[in-house]
């Protein structure tokens, strides 16, 4: 048990916590526009934290192959950071074109 292992454990638990927040948010939010907020963002940060943890764990036995593997893992993170806003935007666009109204507080009071 050295300091790198502890760092990996902290990163993985952080990622798991973000994923938990995303899942709870998807269940609890009132309409689908607000559901997109936890779904798109918390999952992105969860992937970022967990894959960073894996990359650090992978660099434990340092060699050129493990370095390449870690670079590949960061390629996944890079791609997710590019694609997740695009996917979110595309879902919102589909909802807007279909004419779904968004949930507001006033409607609930009235």
């Amino acid at each position, binding site marked *: 048990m050295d300091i790198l292992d502890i760092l990996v454990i902290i990163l993985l638990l952080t990622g798991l916590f973000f994923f938990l927040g995303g899942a709870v948010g998807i269940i609890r939010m009132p309409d689908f526009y607000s559901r997109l907020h936890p779904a798109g963002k918390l999952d992105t940060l969860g992937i970022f934290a967990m894959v960073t943890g894996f990359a650090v764990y992978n660099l434990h036995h340092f060699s050129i192959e493990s370095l390449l593997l870690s670079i590949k893992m960061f390629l996944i993170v890079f791609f997710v950071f590019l694609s997740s806003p695009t996917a979110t935007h595309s879902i919102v666009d589909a*909802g807007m074109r279909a004419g779904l109204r968004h949930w507001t507080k006033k409607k609930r009071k009235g």
Partner: protein
Amino acid sequence: MITFFLSVALGLLFLMLFSIYRALFGPTVLDRLIGVNAIGSKTVVLLLLIGFLYERVDMFVDIALAYAFLNFIAVLAASRYFHKRKGLYEESFMD
């Protein structure tokens, strides 16, 4: 460390159940799409974990990368397909 990875993988599977609820019972088609997308982003991490458990990360990292691409394209294609579908808001607005 392997035990820890295994428990993290089980935790991820448990979290997928939440999203499966949304994918099965979501009031609109787009809610289901959100659920499927959330499951996909957890699957990418799960594939890496499986790679560590089987000690074949070099293979599973490629699978995870391909899965991330595929997930993105699936969401894009599905949401393009549901443009201007009038059936979208008939099953919506449960309040």
